[in-house]
């Protein structure tokens, strides 16, 4: 299929074909990281601004390395050391960056919809690197790539997302991607963090861990996001660990080939037992590697200038 999108703002609006193209392209880019020279000239001469208004380490360095591997020039713009601290609006910041001839803006922001807003006011390509509790599309793409690599498919798999669903942009993007690609999604966690309303997205919702993990082919653990919770959503961390932490005893209840995912950073001993995070069922580090591939693929695809697809001549 011919890629026509100028931005990558969310998973919700992507078609199944677009998701498949992103994943296929990412597979091809994955091998670039395994070469002696881990760099291709696809974005040579292009400028990418990484506008991280909300703190991030892993997503930021993953984007940065992906951009470097595509030979782009990079400007880092973080909230702590910027004019945003001095009261500049997002629009003014972005227009200033565009006046410097930025071709791409990768934005992480605490407000849902900030990337969509930028895409309307700027000419540059915009990539959403996480907006509030809304979406984190590249995380969902790397999750899909990892599942597809390990399981050979996504359609028909039972995927359980466990933990803080309410405040998680990763959960929302994952739910969109998984349901579009034909997986059966189960959400599980405390009722305050996993409201029944998520059933409207086509998921099964349960508050009993054993029921959620028994038939799962994939278990995706999400971090408890203390920073996004306005009030305490469960009585204590200990109670959460007792009821929903993935312990060795509970792992024994799962299918022997169930794979364990986590977007990081991991709270060892809270949502996941430390040994499980390092165990052979865990694909946490493969997820990190695949993050580079999907981010390279996303940058490469939206860079296209429109019109007919380039053909080999």
């Amino acid at each position, binding site marked *: 299929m011919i890629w026509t999108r100028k931005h990558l703002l969310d998973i919700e609006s992507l078609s199944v074909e677009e998701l498949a193209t992103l994943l*296929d392209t990412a597979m091809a880019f994955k091998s670039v990281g395994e070469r002696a020279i881990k760099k291709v000239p696809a974005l040579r001469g292009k400028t990418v601004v990484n506008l991280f208004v909300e703190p991030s380490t892993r997503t930021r360095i993953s984007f940065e390395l992906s951009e470097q591997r595509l030979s782009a020039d990079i400007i880092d713009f973080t909230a702590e050391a910027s004019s945003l601290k001095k009261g500049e609006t997002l629009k003014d910041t972005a227009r200033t960056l565009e006046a410097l001839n930025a071709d791409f803006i990768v934005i992480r922001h605490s407000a849902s919809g900030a990337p969509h807003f930028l895409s309307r006011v700027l000419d540059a390509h915009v990539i959403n690197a996480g907006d509030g509790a809304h979406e984190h599309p590249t995380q969902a793409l790397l999750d899909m790539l990892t599942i597809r690599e390990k399981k050979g498919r996504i359609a028909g798999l039972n995927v359980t997302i466990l933990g803080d669903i309410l405040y998680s942009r990763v959960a929302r993007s994952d739910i969109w991607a998984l349901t579009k690609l034909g997986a059966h999604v189960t959400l599980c966690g405390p009722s305050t963090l996993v409201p029944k309303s998520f059933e409207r997205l086509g998921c099964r919702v349960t508050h009993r861990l054993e029921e959620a993990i028994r038939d799962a082919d994939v278990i995706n653990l999400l971090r408890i996001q203390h920073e996004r919770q306005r009030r305490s959503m469960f009585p204590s961390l200990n109670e959460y660990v007792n009821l929903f932490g993935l312990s060795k005893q509970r792992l024994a209840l799962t299918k022997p080939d169930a794979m364990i995912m986590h977007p990081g950073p991991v709270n060892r001993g809270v949502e996941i037992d430390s040994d499980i995070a390092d165990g052979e069922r865990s694909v946490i580090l493969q997820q990190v590697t695949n993050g580079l591939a999907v981010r390279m693929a996303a940058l490469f695809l939206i860079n296209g200038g429109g019109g007919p697809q*380039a053909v080999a001549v």
Partner: protein
Amino acid sequence: MNTPSSSGGSAPPGEPGAGTVLLNEGGIQRALTRIAHEIAERNEDSSKVILLGIPAGGAPLSARIAKTLEGIWNHPVPQGVLDISMHRDDLDQRAAPQVWPTHIPADVTGKTVVLVDDVLYSGRTIRAAMDSLNDFGRPAQIQLAALVDRGHRELPIKADFVGKNVPTARSEKVTVRLKEFTGTDEVVLERGGGES
């Protein structure tokens, strides 16, 4: 992933029968056999040769030539795929091209790499292929095999081994259909259409 039936022109799959058939199944087979013999004749040290096909069409052609060469040389011939899309010079002028996984079967440094493509046209693909290959090592020599050479070079590049030379107009399209993708083997010249 798409399995395009064509390259050298932007013709979509389908429309069989339209245009003039330049090579039929037997013609393609004879052309590839001849190319294999010419490669064997040119390269006395058979242990140095690595074949790399350029996707989409070049990949199956490279595999077929390698098989014939194995019969001539009586030893396996390393054969792989070299994607060139990340090294194209028109990336911001067109929609993003399809990217194929690259597979290089052995270290290319000091070896003779034979690039295999289905249609040689402007030469820009081959320029991109040579740039891409650079990232994997320094071959002693790079040679080029093309099933069809349709002319209209835009760069100083020429093929070492050609299946069929076909004079064409720029408005025409050369479509290569291969069994691996569409179940049929044929090369068709289609008139009209736009610049490809």
